């Protein structure tokens, strides 16, 4: 006898509702931990309270009624104070959201409170997604959606049973609802008993359908390019790493190198054009003073003045003549507002209009504010040879020299305002005379009295530094006073990239060569799975650019162990080298999912949508032709196959195939179809039973037949017992079927010999 699937009673449904509601709150609270907002304490407190009440639903009953009355005023006052003290709207709203979740998760909820939990949770998840544009958001929104749908489903079931949603849940004298005394193991067993795996599979399929439909909707929703910028960034500020700001101290870049997370991903339309060791320029630091490198005030002002809001930026390079190479950058947030560039470019496009500052003379491009989310931009026509053309610099430098009086010593007395401005900053040296003398001696040692071209000097100076110092991230502070870089040069201690770059800069400037320090990333890992460049924070680097005296700046990387010193000696056959050294680790595999997220989802725009429509149209057009071609080929193959000579082996092979197919068909008839009917739940009415089905077929044949009366009726009666009767009262099925066959044949004979000619044969 079939047993009915049990059902959850009202109390158990309440318990599941409580579980899902608090689980939803926990999922939402977890977003705050990767949101990088100063709300961790509050998030931890909310998480603990919600988790505790989730495990022990009787806890909220201990909350005094006064707490419920004071909760709302307290939350409002807290929000007002938070907003007033911090001045940031979005973090204050997130903290407000957390407080509300804490309260709702820690107290008994009615239906509208459950809805509030959903809205509060969705707000947190959505804000986290918008602010981080992280792949985690995709996972989290899917989990959130699944739990929310289950939550709403249970709420609807509870409401359907209770009838009146406004009716309060029955509570005991102590204020504890009856359902709150949960025994989770028992509930788990009950849920397991109630669950039908077919329905579970169907639910999973439906959810997969939701994801598919939402993906289709995402692609199909019409996009319009509205000229407005992203609004949430106005309500929130973010600090980036100091190593990539306008001012850095020695060691700042090294700090970044400790982090191995991916900072930049670069998609290239032609991987062969990627240099072996690309340098991603971010900040140009032309001024040096006492161990601090910075962009000079004049250049900073020019950057500030150049601020504009536009969806694209024009670079100093000319339009590419040959087939253009597109570079798509996905620059993570929290690193810098300066965007990495490999060299002079023609055009840079943002996903949406952005406020940005641009200095083409330095080839620097920075967003006005620190980006709170991943920044994506595409560059057309970018040079990667490490040379920055700048023919105007020589003239500017000459004018500046002519306009600046010779101070004739006592440079230590010079204040901030009287310090030389750009472009003279590219020749700036330490203020102390003994430091300058040290540098002069070193420069003389490098040149050996010869007049060297800038390239030769760079080569020799780099070699001189490399011979004298090794590479190390751990650099002890040099003893004695004076300039720290000069002090380091005096020793033979190893150094990091910033020390090498700063030392080279001072040496070159001492030799009269305009030189500047550039920070950014060097190199990267080629992802073998999705073919893109992964640049990690550990690839942070500092190097130099030296003016060649007439045409522009060439790159010099003096750091020991850093490979080739100057440009022109590297960056050839990059694509092949990159593919050979591609990263095939699990980390790269996981990271490739993130680039897919960026490519297909985050970077999806109107242009991509149009391209998708076009490709769909093309695919549709080509599908018919491809099908016709395939059919023609199959037909031709079949004809050729038939014309081939038939030998015994071939015959046996195909006979085996036919027999195998027959066996499979018979197996399906005997077992597979029964299984399928059982799967569809028809076994309840007994139709899945093969004996009953066979009896049904014979009944169809015999009912209405003109066969001999008594025998036919008896057989029909027995067949009906087999078809509909209880199994205990069955006659022998095989015998009944034999008699049914005889009765049917007899009926056919009667029909054939009937005076009217017999008519049609029985079915």
């Amino acid at each position, binding site marked *: 006898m*079939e047993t*009915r699937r049990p*059902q959850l009673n009202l109390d158990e449904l309440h318990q599941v509702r409580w579980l899902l509601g608090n689980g939803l709150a926990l999922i939402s609270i977890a977003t705050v931990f990767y949101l990088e907002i100063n709300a961790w304490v509050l998030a931890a407190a909310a998480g603990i309270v919600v988790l505790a009440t989730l495990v022990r639903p009787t806890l909220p009953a201990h909350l005094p009624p006064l707490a419920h009355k004071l909760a709302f005023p307290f939350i409002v006052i807290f929000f007002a104070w938070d907003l007033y003290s911090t001045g940031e709207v979005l973090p204050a709203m997130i903290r407000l959201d957390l407080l509300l979740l804490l309260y709702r998760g820690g107290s008994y909820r009615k239906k*509208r409170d459950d*809805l509030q939990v959903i*809205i509060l949770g*969705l707000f947190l998840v*959505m804000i986290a*997604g*918008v602010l981080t*544009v992280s792949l985690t*958001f*995709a996972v989290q*929104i899917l989990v959130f*959606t699944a739990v929310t*749908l289950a939550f*709403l*489903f249970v*709420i*609807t*079931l509870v*409401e*359907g*049973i209770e*009838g009146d949603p406004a009716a309060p849940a029955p509570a005991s004298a102590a204020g504890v609802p009856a359902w709150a005394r949960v025994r989770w193991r028992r509930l788990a067993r009950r849920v397991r008993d109630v669950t039908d795996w*077919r*329905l579970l599979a*169907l639910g999973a399929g*439906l959810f997969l*359908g*939701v*994801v598919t*439909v*939402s*993906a289709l*909707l*995402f692609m199909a*929703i019409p*996009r*319009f*390019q*509205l000229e*407005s*910028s*992203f*609004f*949430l960034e106005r309500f929130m500020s973010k600090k980036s790493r100091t190593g990539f700001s306008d001012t850095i101290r020695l060691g700042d870049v090294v700090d970044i190198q400790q982090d191995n997370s991916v900072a930049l991903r670069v998609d290239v339309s032609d991987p062969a054009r990627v240099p072996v060791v690309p340098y991603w320029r971010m900040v140009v630091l032309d001024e040096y003073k006492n161990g601090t490198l910075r962009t000079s005030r004049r250049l900073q002002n020019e950057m500030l003045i150049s601020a504009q809001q536009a969806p694209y930026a024009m670079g100093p390079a000319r339009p590419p003549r040959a087939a253009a190479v597109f570079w798509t950058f996905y620059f993570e947030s929290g690193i810098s507002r300066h965007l990495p560039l490999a060299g002079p470019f023609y055009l840079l496009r943002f*996903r*949406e209009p952005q406020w940005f500052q641009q200095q083409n003379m330095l080839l620097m491009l920075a967003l006005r504010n620190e980006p709170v989310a991943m920044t994506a931009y595409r560059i057309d026509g970018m040079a990667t040879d490490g040379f920055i053309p700048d023919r105007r610099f020589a003239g500017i430098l000459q004018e500046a020299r002519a306009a600046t009086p010779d101070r004739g010593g006592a440079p230590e007395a010079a204040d901030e305002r009287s310090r030389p401005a750009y472009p003279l900053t590219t020749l700036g040296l330490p203020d102390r005379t003994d430091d300058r003398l040290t540098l002069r001696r070193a420069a003389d040692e490098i040149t050996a009295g010869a007049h060297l071209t800038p390239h030769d000097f760079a080569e020799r100076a780099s070699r001189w530094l490399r011979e004298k110092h090794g590479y190390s991230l751990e650099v002890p502070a040099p003893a004695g006073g004076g300039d720290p870089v000069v002090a380091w040069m005096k020793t033979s201690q190893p150094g990091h990239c910033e020390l090498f770059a700063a030392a080279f800069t001072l040496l070159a400037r001492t030799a009269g060569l305009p030189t500047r320090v550039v920070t950014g990333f060097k190199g990267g890992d080629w992802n073998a799975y999705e073919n893109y460049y992964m640049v990690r924070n550990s690839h942070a680097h500092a190097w130099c650019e030296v003016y060649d005296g007439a045409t522009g700046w060439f790159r010099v990387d003096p750091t020991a162990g850093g490979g080739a010193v100057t440009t022109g000696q590297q960056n050839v056959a990059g694509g092949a080298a990159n593919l050979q050294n591609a990263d095939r680790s699990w980390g790269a595999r996981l990271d490739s999912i993130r680039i897919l997220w960026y490519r297909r*989802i*985050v*970077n*999806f*725009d109107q242009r991509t949508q149009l391209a998708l429509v076009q490709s769909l149209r093309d695919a549709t057009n080509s599908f018919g032709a491809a099908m016709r071609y395939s059919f023609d080929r199959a037909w031709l193959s079949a004809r050729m196959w038939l014309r081939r000579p038939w030998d015994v082996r071939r015959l046996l092979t195909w006979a085996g195939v036919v027999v195998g197919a027959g066996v499979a068909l018979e197996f399906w008839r005997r077992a597979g179809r029964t299984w399928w009917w059982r799967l*569809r*739940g*028809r076994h*309840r*009415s*007994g139709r899945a039973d093969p004996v009953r089905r066979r009896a049904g077929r014979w009944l169809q044949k015999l009912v209405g037949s003109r066969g001999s009366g008594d025998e036919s009726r008896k057989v029909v009666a027995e067949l009906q017992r087999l078809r509909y009767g209880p199994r205990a009262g069955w006659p022998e099925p095989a015998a009944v079927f034999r008699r049914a066959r005889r009765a049917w044949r007899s009926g056919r004979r009667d029909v054939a010999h009937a005076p009217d000619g017999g008519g049609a044969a029985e079915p």
Partner: protein
Amino acid sequence: MKTAAESSAPSAEWEGPGCGRRRRFRWSELLWSIIFPARSHRIKPTLTGMVLISMALGIGSAAYNTASNILFITLSLLLACLILSGVMSWQNLRGVCWRLLLQPPLRAGQEAPVTLELWNRKALLPTHGLWFELSARPVPRGPQRPESTVTATSADIRAAFARREAEAMSGRLRLRERLDPDQQARLDWLFVPARRGVVRVELASVGSLFPFGFLSKNHGTRLRREAVVWPAPVAYRVLRPAAALRQSEGERVARPGSSDDLLALRRYQPGDSHRLIHWKASARLRQLLVRQFAAESAEGFSLWLQTPAAVWLRPEQFELLCGLACTLAEDLFTAGQLVLTAVNAEEPLPIRRVRDLESFLDRVAVLEPEDGDQRAEVSGQPAAPKPLGEGGRTEVRGQQVGDEASTAASASRPPFVMQRRNVITFAPEGVRGVAAFVDGNKTATA
């Protein structure tokens, strides 16, 4: 809840999406039904649905203003959830049949049970969370006029509708448990008919919030059942003991009972004693027949109900008349003393079985005062019966009164003449009361 394996196809009483032949799915019909839903199909957003729609609008606006794909994803998910909700809701209702069962007798002023049977004919999916809007309203007697005219004001129309609605009783039944595939469930609804007549019980709509409570969906139905409501029993006062009413020459009643007199033969039914089988008759007719004996013959009464409109001027008095007549008929039948009933000039109905009594009650339930075209001729005055004439008999002559068709039909029959003793008649007593007379002697009042 029980398995519905006893029959694979629903009978004609069943209605709902799961009944009848499955129509071929057409996209055009689906789209058209979304644009222009059927008259009784209503979809209304709930609080949850309003929240969802508001969120979708807000997120959509933000997405277009910021070109943020994260917001577009969220918007897509919200819209996909709405689509999923629609699909699941459709699946929930698909394959469900329902039928209304009324369990007579229905009596005014007493609770009447209405049973709604549900059948989930789906193969795999259960059905959850349905509710059923039921209503019971009296069917107006006689020809009806329109509730309003073209010149009526809106207030008049509203008042007319309000009057109609005030007469109706409505209730909501909820399917609180899961209805598994191929299972049936029964839901009971009790209502109290206010007055006698014909009541129409209607399943107005089937609603659901399933699955997520975004939309309240009402699926209108045309399932209705009509039933006769008998008059409410009334308390009456007996002025003379019943025994004294009995006349030695009273009518005798023959009905199934346990005396030695053979009344009839009937088919054998499971549970009948084998001793009662009439073997000869069974052998002759090739089926088992059992003997049915008569009850003790007893003196009986005939009940004659006359309702001339000129006599029964007050509606409440007329209602009391109907109630008293039915109550007396039932009491007399219970005592085995009811022989015959007659209503106005209609053909008298011998009362032998319960079914005969029920027919009389059914007739009284829809009885109305008759107009002046009364052709029944009654010796004596109907409104104030006189004591028995010669021989103590009451003579009734007449024919059925009704529309022309029935009059023409009855004209072909000879007018019946009834001469009996112990005929109970009725007359108004005072302004509110009703009196019952036995052969002209006042016997009971109500």
